[in-house]
Every structure is written in structure tokens, then in C-alpha cells.
């Protein structure tokens, strides 16, 4: 068992798709990040937080979507995610789903980038009617990315911000996130089981597999998309 002294700080990445400055999505993510820092401190651990504001790189994201060209700004964001021990992913709800900007960002990521990483999902909306968005719409996307998504998702409609129940949920999610980071789950998957995951040919996974995943058959088998 390692002690606080010899342990690297956990790297926590916050991704916010909020369009305002500040935005409700960023606010919710920040509250969760603060609580995670506090929980980790209680466990004798430190956490460094990096924030990726998607609104600041929206042009870079649309360039990547269209041309697969990754600008240095977008590449920096991807590096932060790749190095993160945990992620808080937060979006406004538009039309009963995560925003197009949020979806586009996660769609341009390499399928292997986030395997096994602990993620807390967060969504903010104008109405309680959309409270299922995190679990119904976001969780499947992160299932595709094979993240270790925390059981507690966060959702805030306007009336939730002053409700102590939201802070309770945030505490719950923060503890789950810290425990998952402490478990070293993502690293252990990478070390012990990496080859058992499907990887796209030439992916950023870092471990080569012996099967040619770029063949037509494998591309179809992995659900490769039509153009």
C-alpha cells in the first residue's frame, strides 16, 4: 500500500461543453471536481485538475470532424484526456440530448483513448423533464468508448442548484470517482488485458495487435461506419 508521500497526484480532466462563460455545465463540473479534490485529500491523495472548455476549441473540433486534421489546440486537449486518471464530462442538454459540440468532440477521439478510465457524467438543463439524458444518452456513448463510468450521474435543472440533494449526489459521484482512480483500474486493464479489446488499425492505443483490424471484415466486425 503506497502512502501519500510516494504517490503521483491524480490527474483529473474536466470537459465542459457549456456555451456561456461561466456556464451551468462548467459550474456543475467544477463542483464535482472540487469535491473529488477534497475526498482525495481525506484519503491522503492530491489531485491536479485540468479543464477543457469545448467552446474555446469548437472551430478546431469542426476541422477535425471534416478533415481528420487535429490542430495543436485540439491535440493538447486530447493529450490531457489521454493522460488523465479520471474525467468529469459535462454538457448542456439541447433537444433532450448532449449538445452537438459535446458529441462531436467525443466522436473525433480515438476509440482506444479512454478505455477503462473512470468518468463522471454531468448534464445541465432548463427542465427536470430531461433528467434522464446523462444515463440514457451520454452513458451509451461512454459505453462505446469503454470507459469505467461512475454509477452516479449528475444532473441539474434550475431548481436543483439550491437543493441540498444535488450536493449529496455530487459527494457520491466524487467518492466513486476517487475510489475508481485509486483502484488503478484503467492501468491494470492496459497492463493485463489490452489485447482482448477490439482496436482500430493504427489507433493511439499504444499496443499493437497481431490481427489486421483494418481489413474490410474486421472493420465491419467492429461496427465501422459507412461514409
Amino acid at each position, binding site marked *: 500500500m503506497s502512502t501519500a508521500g510516494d504517490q503521483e497526484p491524480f490527474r483529473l480532466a474536466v470537459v465542459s461543453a457549456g*456555451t456561456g462563460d461561466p456556464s451551468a455545465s462548467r459550474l456543475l463540473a467544477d463542483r464535482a471536481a472540487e469535491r473529488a479534490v477534497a475526498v482525495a485529500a481525506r484519503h491522503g491523495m492530491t489531485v491536479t485538475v485540468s479543464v477543457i472548455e469545448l467552446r474555446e476549441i*469548437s*472551430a478546431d*473540433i*469542426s476541422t477535425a*470532424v*471534416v478533415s481528420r486534421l487535429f490542430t495543436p489546440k485540439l491535440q493538447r486537449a486530447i493529450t490531457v484526456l489521454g493522460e488523465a486518471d479520471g474525467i468529469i464530462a459535462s454538457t448542456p442538454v*439541447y*433537444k*433532450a*440530448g*448532449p*449538445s*452537438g*459540440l*459535446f*458529441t*462531436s*468532440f*467525443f*466522436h473525433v477521439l480515438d*476509440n482506444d483513448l479512454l478505455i477503462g478510465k473512470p468518468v463522471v457524467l454531468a448534464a445541465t438543463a432548463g427542465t427536470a423533464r430531461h433528467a434522464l439524458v446523462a444515463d440514457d*444518452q451520454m452513458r*451509451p*456513448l461512454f*459505453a*462505446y*468508448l469503454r470507459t469505467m463510468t461512475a454509477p452516479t450521474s449528475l444532473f441539474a435543472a434550475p431548481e436543483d442548484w439550491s437543493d441540498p440533494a444535488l450536493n449529496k449526489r455530487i459527494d457520491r459521484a466524487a467518492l466513486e470517482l476517487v475510489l475508481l482512480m485509486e483502484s488503478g483500474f484503467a492501468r491494470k486493464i492496459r497492463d493485463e488485458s489490452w489485447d482482448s479489446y477490439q482496436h482500430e488499425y493504427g489507433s493511439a492505443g499504444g499496443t499493437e495487435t497481431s490481427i489486421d483490424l483494418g481489413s474490410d471484415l474486421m*472493420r*465491419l*466486425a467492429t*461496427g*465501422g*461506419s*459507412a*461514409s
Partner: protein
Amino acid sequence: MRIAVVVGNPKPASRTLGVATAVADALSARFGVGESHLIVDLAEHAGDLFDWGAPRLAQLTAEVAAAGLIVAASPTYKATYTGMLKAFFDRYGSNGLAGSVAVPLMTGGAPIHALAVEVHLRPLLVELGATVPTRGLYVTEPEFADVGASIGRWAEAGVPLLRRALS
């Protein structure tokens, strides 16, 4: 009535656009639509998609909402529709497609993600207030060569439902 085709594929003139246009052609023939389709190939507007003030897109969202029948189409990205298609529909206000009838259409490499059209794309159109009377249509790559046959099978059950919704 006019048929609007909205395609959220990052590649211009994609095969998804081809399938969506074929669906529009088939519906146009069956419903005797005289006017030509309104084609919105979002690849041509990628630079504007996250710009809430873009005037060209404001015009297109209004034209699509006024068309009457909408074919909303996307390739499958990470088991759902593209963020590009979502960014276009995000521009509408609440119930922005009320009064429209919509057909959800997705393309993919294989049938394994076929449910995406029902679990992700249909609810988006319903949230916008559109009427979605038919099953979603999911067309896989091996079907592209004879896409008319796939569309025909879907249309057999779909066209009477669309006709009722449009009347």
C-alpha cells in the same frame, strides 16, 4: 409540401446523402410531390455549425421546418448519429419541428448498430415536435448496391403511415 433532406455526414456528397436522396425520391414519387427536394448537406456548412449566429444556417433551419416532410440522415459514429447532425437540430427552439413529419435514417457498416436509429435519432426528432410515424430506416454498407430494394421494403409499411400523418 416539399421534402427536406438533412444529412449530417462530414464528407460532402456522401453515400449517406445518396441513400437519403433515394428515400426522398421514392417518397416523392409515391406522394406526387412536384417540387424538388431541399438538400441540406451539412458537410458544406461545417464551419458554421457551432456559430449560433450564422445567417445561412438560420435560413436553412427555417426552410427545413417549413418543408413538411423531413428525411433526417446520419452515418453511425460511435453507435449513434453524428454530432454534426445534432449541432444542426440544436439550433431549433423548443418544438421547432412541430407540424413536420420526419423519417429517421441511418447508415452503418453492419447491422450491429441498427437500433441507434430508434434509440437515438427518433427521440431527437420527437423532442423537436416532429411526428415520426414509421420505423427508422437503417441501411448497411452491403445494401448500398441495391438500396432501392431496402427502401422498398421499408416503404411498404412506411408509406401508408406517412400518408396518414401528412393528410
